[in-house]
């Protein structure tokens, strides 16, 4: 049964140095507040897993939390490069970053395998690409019935999965709706899980398009109002597109980034809600 705790406690109890950590949310419901808490707790040597390591992982990589990234698309969506990610890969700053690189379909299926208790998944993918020849966790597999050659990808089984959702009830059951991405699979694939939510309600009211994760399948639930910012939580907030644009400038050089990190993450209180407003681009420069 999920325990309802503070965000700081949830991260303390689940994320250790060296852990494999998957923070998911596909454009929508990205767990930024939780990412900031990991930075504040100065976790190191994390193997970060995420289909789209956008701003949240750019920040964690720049803050020195990660030694390896397992991913399928590392950009600032609709804007351009992730400068901290590039600086780590191209110049090893602040630390070298090993890459394990997949396609979206491959990553999604790796989570599906993890959630299903299987060591691998099968897909039509990768064949003829440079990813196949490089890739850890990519292998040929033949259909035992037709002989056809397909691709197997190894399961993802993170130590910890972290997601953000709209609501939890008092028993720790969680509901998210809108674009739900690969979050259910990430939670079910992981050994431990943290779900931050916009609010804790007495009872979940079923929503169109909603998926419910029962509390007994989750380790910790923590309230973090606005915890997805600059991503959004459908029904609670809108995407802060300006922040995504501003991030391009903030992250472009090391000094500006470090100042931003000090002011808006390391110097902030461990509440998702407050740091959100101060992190708005208006406050940045």
């Amino acid at each position, binding site marked *: 049964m999920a325990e309802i705790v503070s965000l700081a406690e949830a991260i303390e109890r689940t994320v250790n140095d060296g852990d494999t950590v998957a923070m998911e949310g*596909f*454009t*929508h419901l990205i767990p930024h507040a939780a990412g900031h808490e990991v930075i504040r707790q100065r976790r190191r040597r994390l193997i970060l897993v995420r*289909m*789209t390591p956008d701003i949240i992982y750019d920040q964690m990589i720049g803050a020195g939390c990660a030694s390896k990234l397992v*991913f*399928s*698309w*590392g*950009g600032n*969506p*609709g804007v351009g*490069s*992730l400068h901290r*990610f*590039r600086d780590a*890969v*191209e110049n090893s700053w602040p630390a070298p970053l090993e890459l394990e*690189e*997949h*396609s*979206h*379909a491959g990553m*999604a*299926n790796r*989570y*599906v395998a993890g959630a299903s208790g299987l060591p691998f998944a099968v*897909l*039509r*993918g*990768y*064949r*003829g*690409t*440079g*990813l196949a020849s*490089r890739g850890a966790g990519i292998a040929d597999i033949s259909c035992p019935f037709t002989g*056809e*050659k*397909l691709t197997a990808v190894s399961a993802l089984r993170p130590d910890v999965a972290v997601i953000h959702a709209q609501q939890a009830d008092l028993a720790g059951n969680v509901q998210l709706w*809108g*674009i*739900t*991405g*690969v979050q*259910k*699979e990430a939670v079910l694939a992981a050994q431990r899980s943290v779900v931050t939510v916009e609010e804790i309600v007495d009872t979940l009211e079923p929503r169109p*398009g909603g998926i419910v994760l029962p509390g007994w399948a989750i380790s910790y639930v923590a309230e973090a109002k606005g915890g997805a910012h600059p991503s*959004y939580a*459908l029904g609670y907030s*809108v*995407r802060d*597109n*300006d922040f*995504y644009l501003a991030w391009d400038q903030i992250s472009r050089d090391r000094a500006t980034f470090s100042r931003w990190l000090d002011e808006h993450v390391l110097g902030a209180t461990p509440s998702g809600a407050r740091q959100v407003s101060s992190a708005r681009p208006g406050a940045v420069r």
Partner: protein
Amino acid sequence: MTEYTADEMMTVTAARALRDGMTCFVGIGLPSAAANLARARHAPNLVLIYESGTIGAKPDTLPLSIGDGILALTADAVVSVPEIFNYWLQPGRIDVGFLGAAQVDRFGNINTTVIGPDYDQPKVRLPGAGGAPEIAASCREVIIVLRQRERTFVDSVDFITSVGFGAGPGSRQRLGLGGAGPQKIITDLGVLQPSPHTAEFVLTGVYPGVLVSDVQRQTGWDLQVSAELAEIPAPLPEELAALRALQAASAEGTEA
């Protein structure tokens, strides 16, 4: 005649490539603008599918990410990311996929991973694959959209992120790729299409005022020109008006 930008010409050309009733796998940026322009004009029943899991999205502004709320709120169905790839893209249900590129080669192979010969010491680290490899493999056909420059239209890409025609004729069959592969590269200068014999992209159309030699100069391989080279008509005033209205609406959406 109305003034227009090269990007507007590209977008209009891409929109014209879409037929009503098609299912279309859309990325953000120009492809999304093109698909929504087509939907606003000649293809009202175009089915837009975004990799975020939104099927049949009907945004009235251009979304700024593939996961904007407007996509979920206007979609016929919202499914999980594993489902969009496994149940919808992989079996070949989707007619056309739009792809961008950092580099494209003469066989329509795409690089969005690294620039430079050494993966581990890249000159530029690009975002990576995203949904592109499987879009390239499984959509019934693919349209590549990017600005034409000598450094992006290369003889051979530094890294094959997504397969076009591989090493040439027969490659896709040997690899077991389900779709027909890239059928058009739409650039800011014109349109390239694969030769049915060599699978190499040749110039089949140029925009008004663009010379074949301009296009060849911006191509890193010895670009052949189709015997049926066409001049692609400039955007109609109605096309431009519709595109600009979409863009204005989405700029407003961002302010709000």
